[in-house]
């Protein structure tokens, strides 16, 4: 049995000297597992993602990703680790306005040679096009459009292609569908899940919309795993 994708033990986090915000005794997400995490705003979701992403450090406990203890790495190593193993989709404004669609998608490869190496002999641009087509952005002439002209749904699909390029082990999606209407949301999720299933990517999907939870293997509420005394319930 390989190491779990995410393995959190006795983790505690607080901003500076303020009271503990996050206290997680145990959180284990297996490889390839697709987990839905809900939580009210201000409950520490973003903080948890910051910890997993390695931009925040816990006060106590360990955070292991794919067998590596991330919180023991140095800042530069954490940045490198994030670039190599994690893909992110945010709620909105995912794209860099001055880059083309393709350049946005292949951006992670420029910061992580390891991730670029996983493409093997496939050209980065070809893989980007493959992902975009798989995510439903195959229309001819589409790729030449400036990213600022894309609809919100199209932007999120480009962001998903960027998060998945170079096969990162874990996809972290932070409310990626909250800016989409109901139809676009279903469509987007279906395609995203298909692609993750095919590549065996672990998914940690954060949202407050519980109606989406049926698409996932497991559903968690942050309030249930966070035992910090001041946590929002």
């Amino acid at each position, binding site marked *: 049995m390989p190491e779990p994708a995410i393995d959190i033990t006795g983790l505690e986090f607080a901003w500076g000297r303020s009271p503990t915000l996050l206290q997680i005794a145990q959180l284990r997400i297996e490889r390839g597992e697709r987990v839905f995490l809900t939580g009210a705003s201000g409950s520490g979701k973003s903080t948890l*993602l*910051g910890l997993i*992403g390695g*931009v925040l450090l816990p006060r106590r406990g360990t955070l292991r990703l794919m067998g590596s203890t991330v919180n023991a790495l140095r800042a530069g190593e954490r*940045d490198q680790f994030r670039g190599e193993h994690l893909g*992110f989709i945010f709620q909105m404004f995912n794209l*860099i306005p*001055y880059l083309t669609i393709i350049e946005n998608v292949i*951006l992670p490869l420029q910061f*992580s040679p390891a991730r670029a190496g996983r493409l093997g002999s496939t050209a980065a641009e070809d893989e980007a096009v493959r992902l975009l087509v798989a995510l439903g952005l195959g229309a001819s002439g589409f790729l030449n459009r400036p990213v600022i002209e894309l609809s919100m749904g199209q932007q999120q699909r480009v962001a998903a292609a960027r998060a998945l390029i170079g096969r990162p082990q874990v996809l972290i999606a932070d409310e990626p569908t909250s800016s989409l209407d109901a139809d676009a949301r279903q469509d987007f999720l279906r395609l995203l899940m298909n692609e993750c299933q095919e590549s065996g990517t672990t998914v940690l999907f954060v949202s407050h919309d519980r109606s989406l939870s049926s698409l996932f293997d497991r559903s968690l509420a942050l309030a249930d795993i966070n035992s910090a005394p001041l946590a929002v319930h």
Partner: protein
Amino acid sequence: MPILRLALRSLWNRRVTATLTVAAIATSVALLLSVQMLRSAAREGFTQTLSGADLLVGARTGPLNLLLYSIFRIGDATTNVSWATYLKIAHHRDVDWTIPISLGDTHRGFRVLGTDGNYFLHYRFAGTQSLTFTAGGPFKTLYDAVLGSDVARTLHYRVGDEITLSHGLGAVSFAEHKDKPFKVVGILAKTGTPVDNTVHVSLAGISAMHIDWRSGIQATGKYRISAEEARSKDLTPDSITAFLVGMRSKVMTFTMQRAINDYREEPLLAVLPGVVLDQMWSLVGIADTSLMIVAAFVVLAGLLGMLTSILTSLNERRREMAVLRSVGARPHHVFTLLVTEAASLALIGILGGVCLTYLLLIGGRSVLAQKFGIYVPITVLSPYDVAILVGVLAAAVLMGFVPAAQAYRRTLSDGLQIRV
């Protein structure tokens, strides 16, 4: 290095503001560079007001004083050099040529200089340039006059016009040499030196004007000598104001200078014109230094404009930084990105400024020479110019540290949160 490409793409995305910023930097750099080039050309022009002569000789006084009254025609000589002494030095075996200078009269505010044909042959300015005529030629007969370009232009004289010279140095003189009018036979090209403001006549012409004058008053009645009668008189001058010396061999210059300064028969002073001109520039050159300071401040203003435009863009780019962080960019990448943008803007601005300077130089060079007598050579940038430009670039990079540091701090506190 993806950062450089990102920086350039980001600038291209904001190309309107970026172009304006570059234009502001280019204009200010062109100003700085032009001032720098003009000031070295002006210095060159000034210190080479008189470039061919090895020695300037006059009655004993201070070196600056001698230069002021004999070359710049500012102030007046208190004592003259006797003609006999002049001849003795002029005929010395080490002396190649001499140019006599006799001052004291004016024409409508312009100084009259008595000299001989050597003046047109040996006078040099701005390096090796000799005097050239835009009309006519050197004086040949007793009552011929050659005008400097400003004299002709200001008073609208042409070759063939008759002019009356005045006794003494006032702009409005009551003692005129009306009885001995001079005819304009030549007009000199612009030199950017005091030659432009001078009316040149022969030494004999000066003597003829004053032949019937005693103690500053013209004789009356039968003692008066007409212009025609004067032609037959001995017109050898008694004395001259000063003279220039060209040596056969430069190495003899110092020996000759010492010999003249130690001359027992008459108290004389010989100076090296270039040395005294250099001393004088340190007095009058303050104006161009202040111009340079002003230009430097204009460059600073251009760079501050760049700083403003980058700082204003920072808020809307906050989420861009979070996205870059999420794909593995380190905080120092964000820092480098912003410094690179500042450096690129400045570099393009500086290159534009250099091009602009050369365009201005090529376009304005003949006007500068004709109107102001400043000869600006078109050369490659001097090491000093390059040092200035590197300084501007360094200043821009340092300024880029301000938005970069701000973005760096925000990047650390924002982490992966997209702040709207």
